[in-house]
């Protein structure tokens, strides 16, 4: 089933970490397997990376602790070798870390080099975007990663009920668009022409981190933006290019966009005020943010909406 949510503040930062956690926890019944967040903080000159050092499903293996330590040292060494100045490294859980770098070079080369460490995966990269995803419901993941203090202008999130692939971090949303920074997507639905698009995008030199159909949307949109197509046009085009049922939310450094599926099979409810926009698969998520009476509505099939912060 899965549930998606997004919130954007039009007039400056807010406690979006806590807000999106509340929204996702209210929709826990749509997917208790894993929860993911894509959060946008104040843009900095530094490059922020969220990295998974090894597959936590292998945690039972006896040398797991040693391997993590080895991978962390290897990560630091490799960052040094590509000329990235490590400002800060935070070990958040035993297998997840967050690094801040001074780095001017090619992001693709950086990501490729880091992911060359066996089992390591770059969960997000950018000057503003941070993706956090793990197994469990929204509150437990947010606690584990200390998201309650995260301030920013916009965020999206996803609660997952795994149907087509394993319950693991690689299968959890949101997806970023390797190798484009600061773009993330959450998706509710199925894309039936996934393999065609994957081949097409692979021919253009893109690479995919997972077997999940939703990752296509992120890479597809990033490719369009890279070709200077405006976000709204790119989303509208995607409604023709993709087959299947899909409602998705996409975020970039400055914008939040949403596409409601043309078959009207996947839900979306929207609330907009002068200060903010909140949207989710279910109104109960929006109600968790706002304590007074509000007007909400369901966008119609094929509608595309974009807001800027």
């Amino acid at each position, binding site marked *: 089933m899965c549930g998606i949510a997004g919130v954007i503040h039009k007039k400056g930062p807010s406690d979006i970490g806590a807000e999106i956690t509340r929204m996702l926890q209210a929709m826990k019944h749509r997917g208790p397997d894993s929860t993911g967040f894509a959060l946008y903080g104040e843009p900095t000159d530094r490059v922020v990376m969220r990295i998974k050092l090894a597959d936590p499903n292998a945690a039972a293996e006896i040398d797991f602790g040693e391997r993590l330590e080895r991978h962390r040292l290897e990560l630091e060494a490799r960052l040094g070798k590509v000329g990235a100045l490590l400002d800060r490294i935070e070990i958040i859980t035993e297998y997840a870390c967050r690094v801040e770098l001074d780095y001017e070079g090619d992001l693709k080369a950086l990501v490729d080099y880091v992911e060359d460490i066996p089992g390591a995966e770059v969960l997000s990269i950018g000057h503003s975007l941070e993706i956090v995803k793990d*197994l469990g419901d929204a509150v437990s993941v947010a606690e584990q990663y200390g998201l309650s203090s995260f301030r920013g202008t916009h965020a999206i999130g996803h609660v997952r009920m795994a149907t087509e692939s394993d319950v693991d971090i690689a299968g959890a949303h949101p997806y970023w668009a390797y190798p484009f920074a600061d773009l993330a997507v959450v998706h509710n639905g199925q894309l039936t022409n996934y393999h065609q698009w994957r081949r097409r995008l692979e021919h253009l030199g893109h690479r995919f981190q997972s077997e999940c159909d939703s990752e296509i949307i992120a890479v597809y949109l990033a490719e369009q933006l890279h070709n200077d197509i405006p976000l709204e046009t790119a989303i509208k085009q995607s409604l023709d290019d993709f087959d299947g049922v899909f409602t998705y939310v996409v975020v970039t450094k400055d914008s939040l966009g949403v596409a409601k599926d043309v078959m009207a099979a996947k839900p979306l409810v929207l609330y907009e005020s002068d200060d903010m926009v909140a949207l989710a698969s279910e109104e109960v998520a929006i109600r968790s943010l706002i304590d007074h009476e509000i*007007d909400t509505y*369901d966008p119609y099939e094929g509608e595309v909406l974009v807001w800027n912060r």
Partner: protein
Amino acid sequence: MEQVVGERKVRYDARGLVEPDAEIPKISEIDGDKAVFDASGLSIRRINLELRWLLAEVGARDIVVQNPGAKHSIGVGILQRCKIRFEGSLGYFGVGLIDGPEVTITGRVGWSVAENMMAGVVVVEKNAGSLAGAAIRGGDLVVKGDVGARTGIDQKGGTIISGGNAGMMTGFMMQRGRQIICGNVGKGLGDSMYDGVIYIGGKVASLGVDCIEAELTDDDREVLDRKLGYYGIEHPDTFRKFVCAKKLWNYDALEPSERKLVL
């Protein structure tokens, strides 16, 4: 709650919303046959337990539920004649499977509101999600704002009214009954409908399979004026009528009542 998944301990509670041991909150303010309670902070199950307790044991017949918070499956399966007013929004399957009540919802409702209603009145002051009035057999479902896609799917009787627009596949597979949409409708109106009648006040994006326009008669106009007037819905004077073309009627088995008509 900790659970072991493979070799890892994962903290989450996968038991869902069942709550087999939930107790009736008994928090309502009761005055004769009137009752009011605040549903904020209560689980779905406890809100429904409170409603049932009020109707079955206290004998309340005029109930106000404050802050329903867009929770799902609230007020389902109520079979008494009574009045219930929800001050706020309901989630999915709100007041489904009812037979008799007069319900007012001051906010929006999610998918499948009043599905399978046998009799009664449900008035939604704002918008409704998709599948509003799915498979209803009787009663009036009145949404003053817009409704989503597939409104009245599999409708078998009763009346569905929208004061605004409706999405795609409105009246999909409807079998009997009546729909009145004051605004525009999306693609595939009345797709695969068996019977029944749909009135549209605005534009029709496209007709579905086996749906055709029919002549609007004085009888139709009287029905529209009465129904919409009763619920105080302003409406245009531009209604068109859509029915089943019956081109796909290739049945060899009829229901007993229909057989009597044919033979």
